[in-house]
Every structure is written in C-alpha cells, then in structure tokens.
C-alpha cells in the first residue's frame, strides 16, 4: 500500500521498514467483544443457573432442545449455507442414535468416544449417500433424501433399536426387562446430563463457526450465490458440497448419540418420516442462515410442545403453526425469525422514537 505521508525522498527507506514489519492482526472491534461477552454470560447462565430454576420436566425438555438444536444446525448448514435441502435429517439422527446405542451396549467405551464414533460413522454414511446424490439438482436431491429417509424408517421399524441384545442388530425382542442406554458417569442425573448436552452442542456450534470463518464457508457462500460462477472461479463445488453433507451428517450423528443417552430407550416410533419435514419447517422459521436460528429451531421443536402440553393445549396446533410458518417464510421472509425479529424490533424502536418526538415538539430541533 502507498506509504502515507512519506515524501518522495524517503520512499526508499519507508517501504523497506514497512516490508520488514509483520502485518498486525486486526483487533476485534468493540461490537464483537460485547457480543462474545453476552454469549459467554448466557452460556454460564444456561449451564449453571437454569437447571436450578426449572423443574425436571423442563430440564428434560431443554436437553431435547440441545439435541434438536444440533440437528437443526446440521440442516441449517445444508439449507442456509449451501442451499441444499435435505428431507431426511431425522433418519440421519436415527442412525446416529442407533450407532451410539449399539456401541454403548456392546462396549464400555467412555461417552465422548462413543459420541465421536457415532458422529464419524454417520458422517461416513452421509458421505457415501452424498457421493451419488449430489449429482442431482436441488429438487431431486431433496426428493431422494425423502426417499432414503422413508426407506430407512421402514427398515428401522423391523430391525428396531439396540436394547442390549446379541448380534449385529443388538435387539432382543423377547426380553422383558430392557436395560436403559447408559449415560456418562459424570452426568448420570437429568440436570447433569442437560449440562453435558449443552456442552456438546456448544462444541458443535463452534465447529460450524470455525467452518464458516474459513475456506469452506467462503466456498459455500460462493456456491450459494451462483454455482456456475463458483465453478468458473475454480472452486471445486462438488467437493465443498460433499464437505457440507459430511459436516451435517457428523453433527446430526453426534446429536443422535446425545439423544440416545437422553431418552434411555429408543423406539422407531420416535423417528417418523414426517419429523424430517417438521424439522425443515422449524429450521426455515428459525432462520437457516444464522447459528442463532438453529437455537430458535431447537426451542420451537422441543420447548414449545412441552409448554403447550403443560398448559393442556394439543401439540397439533404446533404442527399447523409450523406449516403456516413454512409458507410464510418462503413467501415473505426467507431468512427466518433470527433475521426478521431484530429487523422488526429495530422498526418498532424507530416507530417508538418517532412517536416520542411527535409528543414533545417543543424539545425537537427543526420539527
């Protein structure tokens, strides 16, 4: 860059010194620091204060929020970052839960290792499916994920989830007393497991954050804006799309593992095909593009039904709401609540300020 204020005579000196200086990293602005501090404070509150304030019923609900936020995060990476719609993420969750349950029964491995393995195996399967499927265009990719999820649901209804039985499937149909899926020794109680789930969720969010800030994130943004342009710019679009698939599968697989420990008992009824559609709905409503959107999606999915159930309102109203939400998001607010609510609040703020100014015309300057 041009030397600022250096005279022509000193040109030879100044550039040389400047060249020897190492470029300094940009210091994070106050805005970023404030936001980081707020998030950290919120996390501390959630981890330590929240379990004391809530009844066990809500602690369980919030554990589900943590799990489904991760699932929503995975889907959000696909839909929001890359523009791929998957209508089978709940099937992926089921795979993660199945693998984790099988490992937890069959081995005595520590929990974090089991979660990692569940995530990696799910990632492998997701990548294998992505290899042929990613050649399809958007609509057909969505439909094939729906098809594969449907097929898996049928298979799971017959093979069932592991319950301590023998063989590869680990299912014992005739057992009367089914052992529960174990939890980590440090987090056996419900509030402790809630904290464990939140920590795992935070790690997954950090993983995605790291991706977004580095090369994959930039490649995904390029693909999302215009795939032909990205191709022309020399980006290996297929590879980065596969990477997104792998990342989403990994996160969802880990979420499945956490779900296995949360529920203690898994049944194929817990993973019906239409859940994948509802998951897409909450991800769209929460905002597929933002990380906060995944949290909102998790809250919509797991906390709202618990609240409604407590108040005696049928959860079907939520299904209807989510359907309406999908229609609304697709026709008006493509970025979902996470983007819309701050905008609406800002608009509200401006309107309020305008009203305040009108009420006190003597204080305003030129009216």
């Amino acid at each position, binding site marked *: 860059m041009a030397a600022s204020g250096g005279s022509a005579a000193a040109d030879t000196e100044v550039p040389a010194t400047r060249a020897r200086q190492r470029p300094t990293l940009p210091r994070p602005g106050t805005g970023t620091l404030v936001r980081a501090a707020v998030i950290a404070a919120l996390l501390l509150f959630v981890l330590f204060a929240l379990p004391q304030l809530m009844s066990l019923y809500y602690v369980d609900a919030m554990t589900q929020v943590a799990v489904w936020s991760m699932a929503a995060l995975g889907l959000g990476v696909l839909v929001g970052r890359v523009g791929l719609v998957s209508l089978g993420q709940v099937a992926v969750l089921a795979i993660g839960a199945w693998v984790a349950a099988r490992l937890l029964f069959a081995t005595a491995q520590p929990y974090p290792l089991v979660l990692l393995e569940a995530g990696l195996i799910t990632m492998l399967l997701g990548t294998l499916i992505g290899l042929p499927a990613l050649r399809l265009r958007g609509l057909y990719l969505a439909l094939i994920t729906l098809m594969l999820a449907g097929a898996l649901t049928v298979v799971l209804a017959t093979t069932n989830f592991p319950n301590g039985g023998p063989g590869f499937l680990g299912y014992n149909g005739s057992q009367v007393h089914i052992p529960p899926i174990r939890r980590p020794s440090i987090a056996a109680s419900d509030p402790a497991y809630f904290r464990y789930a939140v920590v795992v969720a935070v790690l997954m969010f950090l993983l995605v954050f790291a991706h977004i800030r580095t090369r994959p994130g930039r490649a995904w943004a390029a693909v999302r804006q215009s*795939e032909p342009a990205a191709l022309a710019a020399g980006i290996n679009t297929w590879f980065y799309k596969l990477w997104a698939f792998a990342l989403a599968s990994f996160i969802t697989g880990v979420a499945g593992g956490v779900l296995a420990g949360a529920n203690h008992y898994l049944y194929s009824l817990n993973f019906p095909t239409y859940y994948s559609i509802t998951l897409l709905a909450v991800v769209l409503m929460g905002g597929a593009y933002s990380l906060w959107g995944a949290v909102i999606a998790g809250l919509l999915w797991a906390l709202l039904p618990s609240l409604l159930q407590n108040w005696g309102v049928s959860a079907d109203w939520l299904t209807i709401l989510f*359907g309406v939400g999908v*229609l609304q998001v*697709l026709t008006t607010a493509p970025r979902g609540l996470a983007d819309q609510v701050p905008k609406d609040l800002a608009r509200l703020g401006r309107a309020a300020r305008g009203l305040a100014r009108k009420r006190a015309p003597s204080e305003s300057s030129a009216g």
Partner: protein
Amino acid sequence: MPSWQDFEPFIVSGLALGGVYALSGVGMVVLYQATGVVYLAFGAVGAMGALIAWSLINAHAPGWVGWLVCVAFAALVTLAYGMVFGPALAKRDPLVKAVATLGLTLVLFGLMDLLWTTSGGQSRAITLPTDNGGFMIGQIQVTWTQVISLALGIVITVVTVVFLRLTKLGTAMRAMANDREITATLGVPVRRVEAAAWLGCGILAGLAGVLLADLVALDATTLTFLVISSLAAALIARLRSITITFAAAIVIGLVHDLLTPIQSLSNYRDATPFVLAAIALLALSSGGGQVLTRSREEA
C-alpha cells in the same frame, strides 16, 4: 418360497393399488408440467377429504354425498392453494415450490390429528358399496372396488394423454411446461390454465383419497404419505411422461403387494416405492443433472 397360489390374490390387489397410484401420479405430473409444482400435499388433501367423508357417513349421510364432499374438498383446497401461493412463488425454484406444498401438508396433517385424533387407539374404516360385489377369476376373488381402481387408473391415463395432445387446454398446458413467459405473450390465459391444472389435480387427489382409504387404511399418516408411492412413479417418469408414470405406478403397486407372502421381505415391502424411486433418481442423475435447464420438459 411361497407357491403361485399364494401370490395370486396379491396380483389383483397390487393391480388395484397400482391403478390408484397411477391416477395420482398422472395428476402430479400434469400439475408439475403446467405449474412447476411437485404437489407433495396430494396425499394430505385426499386423506382429509376421506376423513370428512367418514364423518359425514357416520352422521348418517348417504355414501355418495360423503364421496362427493371428499372430492370437492380436495379440489377446492388444492385450487385455493394454487391460486394463493402459485403466483407468490411462480418465479422461484421448483424446490421452493415443492417445500411450500410441504407447508400445506403440515397444516392439513395437524388439522387431521386435531379433529380426528387417533390417540386412544381408535381406528376408522371406510367401505364402499362396491366392496361387496365381485367375481372370481379362477380361484381369486376380485371386488368391484379393485376393478374400479385399476379401470380408473387406465382411463385417467388415456384421457390425460388425449387431453394434452388434442385439446386446446391441454396444448396450453404443454406450452406452459416448455416456457411460461412465451406462452403468456402468445395470448394464452396462463392463470386460467394453471387454475384448470390445479383443479384437475385436486379432483384426482380426492378420488385417490376415497379409493386408498378403502383399499389401504383410513389413517391420516398412512394416506398422507402414500403420496410418496405416486411420487415415485412420477419420478421414474422424470416428471414428464404420462404413460411411463402409469407403467411405473402399476409396477410399484404390484411389487409392493407381491412381497407380502415372501416372509423374509414382507416387513420391508413398504420401502418398495422409496427404493424404486431412489434408483430411478440416481439413474436420472447420470443422464441429466445439469445445473442450468430452462424448460420443465428437460426435467
């Protein structure tokens, strides 16, 4: 391995089921060609129509009134959806249009569970008067309902092919599939053509709802997601050819029912449409998964 006798009744039921899948699949293909929308709520509107019919019949209304209301309901909801959300999403990607119909599916699904709850183990059933009559082909019992299902599938397929090729409205629909903008500039009333397509699809959804409620089960979840079997047939035809949709639908119906007597595979037979569609889609990808295509004819 079961004997031929064990398979025989399932050939008949498979053909009947295939007939209904065919009439659903044809409806979806025509709608896609005319509007670019893959109508995933097809099953849900039929299911809700069937449940409304069930309620009416339970309240001692005559059977034919119930069926008529079912078809009318499905047609009206589909038309209303098409007229409200069609223009709003007209310029968007087919994926967005399809996901929007999923929104409609969720709304209907929630309404159905709210109004006709199945908790408490209630199960409902529907019988058509044509269930009782029938005839024998050799050792196999064939009911009139099954004959109607297959016949309707064949008739709708033939009528649709003739309609698209020979009538003015049909040609207009084919033109819109090729290029909506140019069709509009040629003076074709595109909104009216779209409305006709939505209405036709809705009527077929109602018919399919009635027949599937009788042939399979009157259960909201089952009926809503049976659309996937018809969708599979449509996908095998690349959302383009009516006759291939028919053939694929018959095959899907047959394979699904013929797997019933085979012990080792019987439990997995519900995966038939999913597996066949997945294979078809992957075969599609090796043919033409281009990033840029303009016309729906090159789906």
